[in-house]
């Protein structure tokens, strides 16, 4: 009796066991809850940090490029293009000449029937529609001179309607006497036209200056030597037949001048892959993705009316009706744009967030403005 009693006192009773197990279970359940919350918090934080980095990178690229609009285009940032076949942007000079903006190409804006290359080209609702209620997304295109390669140090000679030969003037270096060469060191150090890294490749757009005439043409084959091909039927319809105004083929054989490589950079959303991406397409080259999960892109523009000396503010489709700014931009041209307002660039978190319900869904928006410093010419505006 006494032995049994001792044994009983040594162990746990069923009641004690049950209570302790219940308490232990509660503690364990709480611990598991905290662990799950911890994992979720860690996941959300990681995702947010990653999103912020992607977003910052994308917005830096976009705002930097927008601020360069028109840089180096000392022509009032408006260059007339050949009109026989409407020139376009958004296509690549590769096999099959694919076009990318909303699955197609976008025609350059026209002024009295003539297409123009402006320093900044608004693309109101030219992008794809991600949600019908939201409407189409916007596209924006900026044009500026490419300073990675001093093509302007070469003398460009029209060899025939589709070929221009680039030769470095002698004696070298013409440190003085060459007004167009932008290389700080003169001709030495200027890379070959066929340089694999920075030379002319198929898809590059070149602005030629032959005396008073300016023509824009697209390189159709990678430069092999000093002669560069600008064959007809290029992806951007810039190389048009002899006799068409503003075409390279119309420039007389033997004419000399110089060329400047342009960067015609379009930003648009590509929703053919999932998730949708912000893409950057340069001249006639294959586009590259800038950021994933960009789900909306919308711009407005501030213009300056140099007749009334008053600005037109917040116009989403300058010069059109409606323009978004009570027709203040009527009769104004894209070259009169002075500020680009990124009305909305929205980035969504990845769909992986769904596993944690709505708490995993995050969004970031960019709403800011960029001054188009190179599109505003003081000689157009009152000086004070």
């Amino acid at each position, binding site marked *: 009796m006494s032995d049994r009693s001792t044994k009983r006192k040594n162990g746990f009773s069923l009641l004690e066991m049950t209570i302790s197990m219940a308490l232990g279970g509660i503690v364990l359940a709480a611990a598991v809850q*905290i662990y799950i919350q911890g994992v979720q918090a860690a996941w959300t934080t990681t995702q947010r940090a990653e999103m912020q980095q992607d977003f910052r990178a994308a917005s830096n690229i976009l705002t930097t490029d927008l601020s360069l609009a028109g840089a180096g285009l000392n022509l009032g940032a408006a260059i007339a293009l050949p009109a026989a076949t409407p020139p376009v942007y958004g296509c690549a000079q590769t096999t099959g000449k694919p076009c990318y903006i909303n699955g197609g190409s976008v025609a350059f804006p026209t002024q009295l029937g003539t297409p123009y290359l402006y320093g900044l080209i608004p693309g109101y609702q030219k992008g794809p529609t991600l949600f019908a209620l939201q409407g189409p997304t916007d596209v924006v295109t900026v044009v500026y001179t490419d300073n990675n390669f001093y093509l302007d140090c070469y003398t460009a000679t029209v060899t025939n309607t589709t070929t221009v030969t680039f030769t470095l003037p002698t004696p070298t270096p013409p440190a003085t006497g060459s007004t167009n060469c932008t290389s700080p060191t003169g001709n030495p150090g200027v890379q070959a036209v066929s340089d694999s890294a920075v030379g002319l490749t198929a898809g590059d757009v070149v602005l030629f200056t032959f005396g008073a005439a300016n023509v824009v043409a697209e390189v159709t084959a990678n430069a092999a030597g000093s002669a560069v091909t600008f064959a007809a039927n290029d992806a951007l319809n810039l190389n048009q037949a002899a006799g068409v105004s503003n075409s390279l083929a119309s420039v007389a054989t033997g004419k000399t001048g110089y060329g400047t490589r342009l960067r015609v950079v379009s930003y648009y959303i590509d929703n053919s892959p999932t998730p949708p991406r912000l893409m950057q397409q340069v001249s006639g080259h294959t586009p590259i993705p800038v950021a994933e999960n960009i789900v909306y892109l919308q711009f407005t523009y501030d213009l300056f009316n140099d007749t009334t000396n008053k*600005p037109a503010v917040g116009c989403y489709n300058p010069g059109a009706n409606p323009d978004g700014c009570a027709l203040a931009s009527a009769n104004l041209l894209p070259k009169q744009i002075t500020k680009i307002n990124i009305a909305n660039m929205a980035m969504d978190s990845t769909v992986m967030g769904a596993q944690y319900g*709505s708490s995993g869904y995050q969004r970031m928006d960019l709403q800011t403005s960029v001054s188009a410093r190179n599109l505003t010419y003081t000689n157009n505006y009152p000086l004070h």
Partner: protein
Amino acid sequence: MIGHGESSQVRQRAESGVSLLEVVISMAVLTVGMVSMLGVFGLAMASTQTSQQSLIAKQLANEAYETIVTARNTGQITWDDIQNTGSSNCPISGAASCGIFADPTTPQPLYQAITTGSYAGILGTTYDVGQPEQTLQDPGTDGIYYTADDVLIPLTGYKRTVLIGQVTDATGNVLASLRSVTITVQYSTPQTNTPKTYILNSYISQYQ
């Protein structure tokens, strides 16, 4: 006697073990600890949310600076105008007082810029006072803009100051054609009691 002795041993053993009361107390302590851990998670999450507000503050400061640069470039305002209101340095007009930017000692709510006239599109001016405040459009739970559940978030927690200052050269002479621009965006977050600030320091020249 033997039984008594054994019984005393048992009591000793029981005393050296863990009583139910002790377990309950230790659980209570543990719970307090765990709850405070939860608080840390919350804080960590909140601080990542704060970085969103920092990003907005940065955008708001940049935006204001870009409007000044644009207005300078277009010439819609004069060099006299690019000063805080009440400045007595008015070389262009020769007036006694000039400057269009609001008093820098009073941070302004984020008024939208006026849209007509010479002072259109410039943020932080005295002409903006009374305009509706800037808002952020949130697409709501469906993630789609321009639907019924869109939320326009007023930026009421934000305040902006545009301070235009004189710049001097090495010998202390005031430079006539260069001014400093300091844009301060103040914002409060639910996590911190004191408002945070983002300061953008830059310059503006009379010429492009």
